[in-house]
């Protein structure tokens, strides 16, 4: 219970601070954000866009991890865990794509420009979509769990290629890209201390939120399976 109250307060603080704190040229007081050239007022979306992209990757990792566990132990609970992780993953993936596209429209002038990271998130969206399509085509529970686990692992080993391949093939717009000329990652050089603090609080808050939602998700899936089995035995 105390965790939930803490999380509620944390996310309230992050949302209010992220939206309302003013951006000024020379930040003096604790609640003022610095003016970042090229980002201006758009910079505030970083508190919500980066955590969603981060959680997409975390969810993808969790899906692959529990798929691996399922293949080793053949325990259907692990399948429920990877399914719950992927369900959240596709939600955050869509959110990251949409918030990123909105930000790109104002910062770079177009909703979509096939920047390396945009391509990677698009590939993740495709993988999640394919994974759910595969799952919905199989009736038997064990078969569905095995085949989707195998697919999740195969998809997981190909993802690192995007990190290495993309920056070579296409020019990057995100900070920290290989051909980025204006002073590297935003987080290190251009944020001041309070902006960094809220950024990392937001990351922590969203990560806790993710794990809480994931726990609720897989528990309800496992209980549903148990109830179904009991009903079958009685009926």
């Amino acid at each position: 219970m105390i965790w939930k109250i803490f999380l509620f307060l944390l996310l309230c603080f992050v949302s209010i601070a992220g939206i309302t704190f003013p951006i000024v040229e020379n930040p003096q007081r604790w609640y003022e954000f610095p003016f970042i050239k090229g980002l201006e007022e758009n910079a505030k979306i970083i508190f919500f866009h980066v955590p969603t992209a981060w959680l997409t990757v975390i969810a993808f990792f969790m899906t692959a991890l529990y798929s691996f566990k399922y293949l080793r132990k053949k325990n259907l609970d692990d399948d429920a865990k990877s399914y719950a992780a992927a369900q959240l993953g596709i939600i955050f993936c869509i959110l990251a794509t949409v918030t990123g596209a909105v930000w790109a429209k104002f910062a770079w002038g177009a909703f979509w420009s096939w920047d390396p990271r945009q391509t990677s998130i698009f590939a993740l969206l495709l993988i999640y979509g394919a994974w759910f399509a595969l799952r919905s085509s199989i009736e038997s529970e064990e078969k569905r769990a095995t085949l989707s686990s195998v697919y999740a692992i195969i998809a997981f080993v190909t993802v690192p290629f995007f990190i290495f391949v993309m920056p070579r093939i296409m020019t990057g717009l995100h900070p920290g890209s290989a051909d980025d000329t204006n002073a590297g990652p935003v987080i290190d050089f251009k944020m001041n201390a309070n902006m960094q603090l809220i950024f990392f609080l937001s990351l922590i808050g969203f990560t806790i939120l993710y794990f809480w939602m994931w726990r609720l998700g897989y528990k309800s899936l496992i209980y549903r399976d148990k109830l179904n089995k009991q009903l079958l035995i009685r009926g």
Partner: protein
Amino acid sequence: MKSFALFKKDINSELRTRYAINSLAMFVIVTLSVILFSIGNETISESLTGGLFWVVIFFTSMSGLSRVFVSEEERGTSLTLQLIAAPATVFSGKLLFNLILVFAMNTVIAVLYSALFEAFIIRNFLLFLVSFIFGNIGLAFASTIIAAIISKAGAKGTLYPVLSFPILLPLILTSVQLTLFSIDGTSFESAQFELAIVVCYDVIILTTSYMLFDFIWKE
């Protein structure tokens, strides 16, 4: 040598029905003519032909490469195969068959394509050949393991390109880049990084699919 026997069996049954070969050949013609019709009298740039080349290859592979495993399920012979051979044997036999099929198919595509598109001029032929070979190997590896998954799942036809595309995306993007390099006449040394990526992709996909095939096959 059992996997070679399996490969010979596949070749024989394929030569008897010619299902995969016919559908692949027709698909090459259909895709190429769709592209030619849509271009019409326009002249397309050299860099576009490199991308379109891989579009033809991707869609053609998606039409016929799932046959190796789907045909076993359709004829109901997969259980017999499970009894007489170990999963690794089955996998290597099927992989060999798909490799031959991919190489034959893509050679035909490359020849037809360079004959039909005048803008498709390869300036560094060695680079094109090496990238073509490694690209084909990766394509065969990835499509074989996805074909195994598809054959065990219910919906066969439509799901195959959906599942394959995200897996093949790194390979296709790098291969398109390499084809562009060979059209531009870039030297072999400056394309080493991309070639290394394709080789890494081949090795990683082969290892993972070899390890995971047991789980699919026993299902």
